[in-house]
């Protein structure tokens, strides 16, 4: 009797496992398809959750340490400038900035957009220069910025720009409300190229004075205030002081916003997964049924292999390899399909559930982001249970005397 090396033995076992999978190809193809669908569904939800959370987290890094709003009659009201010196005097506060922003419904596009007021001259030399794509605007260049009317200029998100281009307003847009005497024209001097498209896509940055006109905000009043605190340990304490000194003011810290982003998408992810629970459960039962129940033919095969001298551990290795190949291939295929669906095709069907207001929300690209921990989790919850349900019945058959299996005693 010639005996080969351990390596040759393992190679033989893997070869046999592959042959065995191919011999039962109709059953295994069915399991493969169901398995891929399951992994695809779960992975897609996890990918979109992570991507959206990631995008929000990137955005939240630029948030002020404390956002201060004024609440009157249970709703947000304008903040008078008189609060600024009092808040600046609180020990630990480095700066207080006022913000002008709001929402504007563009009837011609049937969409709601975010308007933000800022000094666009800052864009020329400041850090914001990098995030504006001037080339997207035909016939505009960096040198021409100052040549446009200073108070009526704006920079728009890529999604807004594309919508405006569709109505031939990519160079200038006329803001109008029925209560106004005449429209207010704004020149478009650039588009955002920031990676945080989820935030910037529907945004219009207007010169502050122009934004005040569009939002009908009186002089010396602001939408809210941004408070900057250099010491992170003091943020909560300063927010508490602001609320105590000015009970009509509401404070929102950066940490609270991050938690909200995280929980919003986490909740939506759980909701979608729960909705799919019945389907996942049905698929799992089908897989269990197909994978775990050894057919009389399979039991007989195990008996024959034992009868010709195969050891229990070799038989288990065969079943382990079969399970690993099938579940591994399915998991990888499911993950790759989910990755393509989420990041290349932009998750049609699922995206709307997560974003919610898709009908008025311009398109955006999801940031490809796959957390290795999530991938490991997906593989663990798919491969390990499958191996258990396939190997255990094989082990039960393999520890039975071949005599009993073959003679059916």
């Amino acid at each position, binding site marked *: *009797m*010639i*005996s*080969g*090396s*351990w*390596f*040759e*033995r393992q190679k*033989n*076992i893997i*070869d*046999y496992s592959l*042959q065995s999978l191919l*011999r*039962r190809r109709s059953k295994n193809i069915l399991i493969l398809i169901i398995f891929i669908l399951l992994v695809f569904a779960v992975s897609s939800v996890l990918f979109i959750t992570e991507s959206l959370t990631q995008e929000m987290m990137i955005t939240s890094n630029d948030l002020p340490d404390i956002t201060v709003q004024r609440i009157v009659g249970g709703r947000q009201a304008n903040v008078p400038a008189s609060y600024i010196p009092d808040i600046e005097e609180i020990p630990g506060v480095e700066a207080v900035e006022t913000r002008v922003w709001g929402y504007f419904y563009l009837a011609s596009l049937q969409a709601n957009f975010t308007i933000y007021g800022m000094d666009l001259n800052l864009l020329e030399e400041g850090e914001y220069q990098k995030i504006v794509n001037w080339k997207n605007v035909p016939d505009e260049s960096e040198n021409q910025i100052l040549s446009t009317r200073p108070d009526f200029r704006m920079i728009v998100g890529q999604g807004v720009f594309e919508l405006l281009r569709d109505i031939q307003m990519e160079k200038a847009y006329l803001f109008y409300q029925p209560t106004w005497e005449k429209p207010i024209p704004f020149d478009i001097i650039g588009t955002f190229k920031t990676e945080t498209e989820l935030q910037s896509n529907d945004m219009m940055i207007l010169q502050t004075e122009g934004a005040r006109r569009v939002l009908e905000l009186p002089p010396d009043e602001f939408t809210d205030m941004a408070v900057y605190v250099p010491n992170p340990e003091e943020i909560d304490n300063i927010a508490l002081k602001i609320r105590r000194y000015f009970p009509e003011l509401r404070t929102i810290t950066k940490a609270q916003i991050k938690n909200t982003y995280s929980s919003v998408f986490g909740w939506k992810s759980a909701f979608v997964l729960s909705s799919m629970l019945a389907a996942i459960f049905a698929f799992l039962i089908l897989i269990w049924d197909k994978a775990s129940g050894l057919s009389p*033919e399979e039991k*007989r*095969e195990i*008996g*024959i*292999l*034992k*009868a*010709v*001298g*195969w*050891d*229990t*551990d*070799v038989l288990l290795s065969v079943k382990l390899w079969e399970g690993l190949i099938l579940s591994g291939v399915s998991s990888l295929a499911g993950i790759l399909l989910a990755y393509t669906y989420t990041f290349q095709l932009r998750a049609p069907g699922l995206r709307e559930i997560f974003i919610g207001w898709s009908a008025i929300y311009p398109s955006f690209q999801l940031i490809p982001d796959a957390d290795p921990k999530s991938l490991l989790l997906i593989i663990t919850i798919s491969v390990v249970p499958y191996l258990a349900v396939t190997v255990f019945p094989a082990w039960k058959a393999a520890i039975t*005397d*071949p*005599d*009993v299996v*073959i*003679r059916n*005693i």
Partner: protein
Amino acid sequence: MANPVVQAVNVTKTYNRGKPNEVTAVKHASLKIDEGSLVVLKGPSGSGKTTLLSLIGCQTKPTRGEVIIRGKKVSKLPEKFMNQHKRRHIGFIFQHFQLIAGMSVLDNIVLPLIPEGVSPKARNKRADRLLEQFNLAHRRQFKISSLSGGEQQRVAIARALINNAGILLADEPTAHLDSKLTSDLLDYIEQLKQSGHTILITSHDPVIYQNPAVDRVLEMKDGQITS
């Protein structure tokens, strides 16, 4: 005195012990088979022939007693070592051939070599020799399900011989064969005996146990060897 290569010492086999369907198939059976001899175990159905053959072929362990193959008490060995001894010393031809229907002739024949780690090239070389010997070369890649009974019988013999084992056990080898195929089988068995194999056959077919090549006939009744 010739050297016994197979010994059963006072073996008893009880199935389903402690259960209502408990049955003792072999009771205190003892035998010795010398190297190179052809022995037939005959007896009516249910007499315990197949169980005794299974015990000697390491397909199951005795409830009591010992089975000794080439000097090693295999019935006392852990499964892994018993299987290794079985692979290296025993070839078994089962009553219903016990071939895997979805696999090719070649793949069935080489099955005992896979756990030994024999490379595909070496396996195929040995299988091809046997395929030639048993006139099955033209059926090499055929599925078992497409073969005739006689061809399946020859595949089963080839599989039993692939590991060059010196001991060949055959359980009712003519049970499903016509007279022509039985005659062919006897020719193969005689050839194997002449090449030095030790052969133990269970059969109640007179064509087998009355064959002049048979050295000894043992009779079983109610689980015991009576002569």
